[in-house]
């Protein structure tokens, strides 16, 4: 049975599942570090997925699609900033509003723009071509994993390192961390923490939008209602578990992505779909429990 599960084609499928979770979680990490409790990643991702299809369909280019997704995510981030930071709305309430808004809006626009309900599939949706890396693609096992993936996968890997350096060495990264930890001190130094948090929300929206683009124009070239299917929430868990630290975040996203991928594989084994759909969340629970047990043990 293990041969059936863990073969080369399974490994090659993992990056596809890791990418959206990782991109959204990196966005969430920026908010987490800036002290904005953003659990609206799911909605930002869904909005991105829809507008990626819109952009790719009308322009014929997946890059325009990705740009549209990025802007859509940023727009949702801007709405979050307006209602949370400027008007003082509660972050959880605003997050839920973002999630509901994205779900309702994409369903509505699907009908309004494409005149379909449920799903929109069309050959005119230009998806990302796979990136084939010479030499690497010929290496067994590693080749299919690291070569032949969507450009967004490579981008997400680069972003893990970039974000790490950004937090450590960039002026804005430093200020984002300060806004999250002691905004009063930041204010005393002459920097308005609200502006820093607003920028963090825009960056988060951009990354979540790209995560959505990975779902709709990299894996499959179509949009389905609610196609983010809880991945934004898994990203939220990854962010909270790692308190927004890029490297630990990468490994958690890797784990969640692998389980996500695995859940599709085991459907082939005849397990009921209801059970396999549960697997990512089960994995989340197990990791949560294990981590808190480990922390307790380390404290005592």
């Amino acid at each position, binding site marked *: 049975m293990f041969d059936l599960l863990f073969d080369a084609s399974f490994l090659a499928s993992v990056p596809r599942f890791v990418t959206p979770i990782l991109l959204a979680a990196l966005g969430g990490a920026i908010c987490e570090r800036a002290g904005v409790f953003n659990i609206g990643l799911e909605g930002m991702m869904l909005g991105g997925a829809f507008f990626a299809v819109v952009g790719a369909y009308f322009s014929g280019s997946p890059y325009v699609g990705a740009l549209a997704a990025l802007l859509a995510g940023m727009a949702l981030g801007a709405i979050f900033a307006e209602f949370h930071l400027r008007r003082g709305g509660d972050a959880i309430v605003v997050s839920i509003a973002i999630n509901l808004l994205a779900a309702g809006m994409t369903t509505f626009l699907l009908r309004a723009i494409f005149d379909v309900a449920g799903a929109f599939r069309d050959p005119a949706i230009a998806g990302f071509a796979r990136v084939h890396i010479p030499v690497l693609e010929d290496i067994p096992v590693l080749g299919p994993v690291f070569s032949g993936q969507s450009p967004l996968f490579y981008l997400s890997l680069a972003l893990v390192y970039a974000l790490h350096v950004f937090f450590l060495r960039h*002026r804005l990264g430093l200020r984002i*961390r300060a806004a999250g*930890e*002691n905004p009063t001190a930041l204010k005393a130094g002459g920097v308005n923490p609200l502006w820093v948090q607003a920028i963090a929300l825009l960056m988060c929206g951009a990354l979540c939008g790209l995560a959505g683009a990975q779902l709709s124009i990299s894996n499959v070239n179509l949009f389905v209602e609610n196609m983010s299917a809880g991945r934004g929430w898994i990203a939220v868990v990854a962010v909270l578990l790692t308190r927004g630290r890029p490297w630990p975040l990468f490994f958690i996203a890797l784990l969640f992505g692998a389980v996500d991928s695995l859940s599709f594989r085991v459907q082939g084994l005849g397990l009921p779909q209801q059970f396999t759909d549960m697997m990512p969340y089960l994995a989340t629970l197990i990791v949560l429990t294990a981590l808190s047990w480990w922390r307790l043990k380390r404290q005592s």
Partner: protein
Amino acid sequence: MHAALNNIRVAFGPLVAVDDVSIAIAAGEVHAVVGENGAGKSTLMNVLFGLIKPEAGTIEVEGVARNWASPQDAIRAGLGMVHQHFMLQEEMTVLENIVLCGEPVNRFGFVDFNRARQKLADGFREHGIVIDLDATVGGLAVGQRQVVEILKMLYRDARLLILDEPTAVLTPQEKDRLFGILRSFAASGKSIVIITHKLDEVLEIADRVSVMRGGRLVSSGPLGETSKDRIAREIIGGDLPPPLKPAARTPGEVVLSVRGLRAGTRGWVGPLSFDVHAGEIVGIAGVSGNGQAELIRALAGLAPGVAGEIMLNGQPVDRLDVGGRRRTGMSYIPEDRQRAGLALGATVAENANAGRDDVSTFSRGPFLDRAAMASFARGLIERYRIKVAGPSALASTMSGGNKQKLVVGRELARGTPLVIAENPTWGVDIGAIELIHAELLRMRDQGHAVLLVSTELDEILRLSDRVLVMYSGTLSEPIEAADADRNRIGALMTSRTDAALRSVA
């Protein structure tokens, strides 16, 4: 850097915090601003730093009249302020904290930490500062954090430093190190302003002393032209409050007995041992922050002590929670009426009955007896002349003095053997002060034990039968009211040197 404040006046509503005060700070001098709590010294310095806009008066920096819109303007002009509560990022390194908000960056916004290190290294050499720039601030001792705050100023080339009670949380060694750095700063031409109430430190470091009392400047001049005794007298003021104390007391049984109590973080307050008898008021004097809050929290059961025992009415209460202690016979008038004393969103009647809803007079079975609650509240309103629309008005609609009268009325109505009053007249008007004082004396005369903790020396002297002075987490020997001299108590409040102890003994 030379700076001057001319004829500054600041008022918060009817309260005049700073009244026509002018002081000048010369380049290269350490200028101490001393005075009691509420004397206006912090307010005055907040004006200089641009945190408060004065109602009248001008600010002058290096001969130029300035009008700060915000502290940013003051920072740009070369001023720096170390607040009593540090403004640090605990999870960041020392270096990151120092450069934050003034980062040296390249074209792409990346921070050039090496440039910052070089700049700091020069300052380190000049002033003899030793600190690990890569250490995380959260792991530093308080004294080191203080150094980080000062390095932030140094890094931004501040030429006038204001330090608000900089030694309040430092150990003697850390204080020596801090003073060394400050002296070196002054020698290099920077001006230092220290707000403090510790006279020993003033004598140790200041070149010039300004004394404030009740919002006014009492004196300002070189340290050499004054003396410790004179400064102490100026801080406390000459006038004694009118005597209010009647009939000699006849102390009864011991009601509260505290033995070897240690409280606060890692038990820094204590060991404390004292008794309060029935029919007496024991006053605990002291500048705030010397362990009074920790003592009270331990007595009331809000934060149980680390060690020692507390007996109330002959019963040990150490293991009881707040409710248990209150039922055993304790009332508590907290300092913070807004949060600890009242529920502002509840009505006057509900607040008047708070903590007594299990008493059968205010309940019918499991339900509250609203009528009884309202009539009880009406009684308090009448008796304490509380200005409020009625029992069903929200507590938040009352003014500060009326809120306090409600708290005092509620707690004293319980008629418990012990009453703990924590700064019971803080921030209330004179009429309310008189009423509250009279009520506390009435409780004493009726044979209740009263523990009065107050930072107002006048209040302590006016009411107490015996006085204990708290300083750095320890209590002095009890001083009988007849021997309670404000100079002696003032000395005990500001230092615990041999000389101060001798003057009391």
